[in-house]
């Protein structure tokens, strides 16, 4: 395959990254999807939009998030220096705020009166409910019944923030089913409703738009590492469900050829077990939720259930730009199992005093595998995209502890 001059040119005007992406939606939604694209382009060209974004990012979300040198962890792993981009310190506890802020400002520009969202772990739901409270917009969050059971603290948070949380019982009651029901709501209420998609997936322009809003992570990290080390890192690492935190970190570095990039999917009980959420490692290209991308599916094209201990990674697809970066070989995609993530979760809590979310614990598990094999003058930069308070019940249960 030919190497492109830049990895940052996508998507094309039809929303494609190579063969991936697109706008595979019902006709009812098509005019709206086109309207969102038009409004987003206009917003990008309007300095006041960026000014508003910057204002709330700084004063409400708390950006820039720090870049932290994990000294004890580095000593423990006895290899490459490990830096964390601390996006878990954002208001609402994850990188999700970066995206919701951008989309809700867009929804306001478009005069939309009602916000809907889907959520897996509840992080995107909490971020959406938070900004809806701030901007006084009614908020409906679709969440799988299975996820509601394992993410009780976030469900309560959303309700405190004034959101209506709708339990989705269809399918396996996880993120993909929540997204199906959010799309059904959108089809029925298309005139007044803005759908804030939480990951870099869905129909064009969502994958592009979410990437752009999340790229604040990578832009800051790039400046911060240059300031701290005087050079770019050797290796970026981020976890991937739909892949929004990962594309946010990776995108500003894509054309820095000397920077190796790895996305870490959730291997659940192991990719060979069939119970995992590793779409790139264990899936093949297909069309779902408005875009062509790698999907977990059977030989008849039926979508199969994903499994991960982390609700935020429990999705049978992945953002289309990741599928493209995988196919052109710019980004390497690895995976970590439930158990590896659990070990990493506990280790980081003890030696750095940071309780990570189970999602970035997958990225950390990969860091623990590669750092010891790298020279001490090498630098790894990992996105610590969420904090783990929401996961303590899940982790306690997995460890057989009653709290």
């Amino acid at each position: 395959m030919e190497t492109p001059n830049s990895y940052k040119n996508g998507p094309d005007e039809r929303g494609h990254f190579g063969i991936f992406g697109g706008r595979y939606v019902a006709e009812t939604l098509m005019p709206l999807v086109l309207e969102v694209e038009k409004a987003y382009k206009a917003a990008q060209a309007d300095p006041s939009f960026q000014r508003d974004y910057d204002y709330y990012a700084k004063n409400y979300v708390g950006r820039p998030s720090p870049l932290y040198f994990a000294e004890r962890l580095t000593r423990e792993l006895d290899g490459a220096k490990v830096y964390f981009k601390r996006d878990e310190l954002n208001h609402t506890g994850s990188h999700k705020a970066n995206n919701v802020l951008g989309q809700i400002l867009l929804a306001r520009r478009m005069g939309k009166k009602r916000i809907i969202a889907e959520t897996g772990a509840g992080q995107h739901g909490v971020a959406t409910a938070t900004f809806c409270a701030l901007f006084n917009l009614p908020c409906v969050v679709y969440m799988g019944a299975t996820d509601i059971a394992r993410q009780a603290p976030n469900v309560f948070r959303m309700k405190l923030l004034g959101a209506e949380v709708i339990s989705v019982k269809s399918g396996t009651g996880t993120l993909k089913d929540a997204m199906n029901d959010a799309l059904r709501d959108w089809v029925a209420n298309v005139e007044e409703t803005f759908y804030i998609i939480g990951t870099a997936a869905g129909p064009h322009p969502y994958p592009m738009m979410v990437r752009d809003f999340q790229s604040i992570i990578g832009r800051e990290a790039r400046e911060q590492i240059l300031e701290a080390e005087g050079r770019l890192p050797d290796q970026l690492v981020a976890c991937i469900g739909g892949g929004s935190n990962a594309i946010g970190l990776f995108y500003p570095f894509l054309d820095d050829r000397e920077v190796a990039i790895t996305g870490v999917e959730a291997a659940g009980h192991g990719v060979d077990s069939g119970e995992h959420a590793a779409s790139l490692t264990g899936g093949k290209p297909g069309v779902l939720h408005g875009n062509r991308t790698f999907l977990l599916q059977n030989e008849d094209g039926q979508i199969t259930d994903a499994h991960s201990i982390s609700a935020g990674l429990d999705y049978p697809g992945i953002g289309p730009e990741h599928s493209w970066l995988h196919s052109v070989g710019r980004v390497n995609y690895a995976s970590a199992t439930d158990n590896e993530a659990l070990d990493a979760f506990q280790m980081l809590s003890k030696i750095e005093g940071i309780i990570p979310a189970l999602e970035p614990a997958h990225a950390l598990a990969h860091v623990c595998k590669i750092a010891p094999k790298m020279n001490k003058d090498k630098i790894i930069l990992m996105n610590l995209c969420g904090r783990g308070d929401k996961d303590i019940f899940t982790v306690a249960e997995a460890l057989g502890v009653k709290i």
Partner: protein
Amino acid sequence: MSLSRLEKRFADLRAEGRGGLVTFLTAGDPDLATSLEIVKGLPAAGADVIELGMPFSDPMADGPSIQASSLRALKQGMSLRKTLDLVRSFREGNQDTPIILMGYYNPIYIYGVETFLADAKAAGVDGFIIVDLPPEHDDEFCLPALAQELHFIRLTTPTTVGERLPKVLNNTSGFLYYVSILGITGTAAAAQDVVRDAVATIKAQTDLPVAVGFGIRTAEQAARTVQVADAAVVGSAIIDKLKEYLDENNRPKPGLTQAVLDYVRTLSEGVRSARG
């Protein structure tokens, strides 16, 4: 040029001066044998066009009835290949009633577009409604289908206005399916005057027949629909009737086929008497 089976059916309806009844069922619900038995009985019960759902695990544009129907079929081992088998079996005894396959793109994409079109044509399929393939993606499946002389029927909705309508009409063939409400399948029906205006707007821009669906549950509603459109589409209500005859394990109870066909017959009588 000779008329296709679908074009001939609408030409005949026009000649008879009556509206048509388009019935929707999911292929393989509640199981392949029962499903085939029902489909075989549909023409005699008064269905003018048969729409068969290709089951999909994630039917985003469908309401609870069709979602459940799709999952029941998949649970019984239904697949796209078996859906084509069902059509083939039906065609052994019927050469006149058009069959339209309706569903989502992914199973077809995985089957392989060219192979699927060839197999579907050989089985006796007349056209397709693929919910998640808007005109922006015509090169994927719509144009290859038209090249095989198979129909590609598109949905238009209350949001299909202005410049969007000609875009949707372009490459649409056989008939146009007007979705009379914003929403998923199986919800409320639209008021007749609203539908009349919408159909008039569409008819000003195309000679294609216009079928209207979403929310039609009774013979009276079907009748009112064909007073202002060329055909009425009934889906969720037929599936709800079928579900009444399933036991707690979703196995068919005695009388299921008869009950579904009787219900279709009442709809058909409504449609046939509508313009009398």
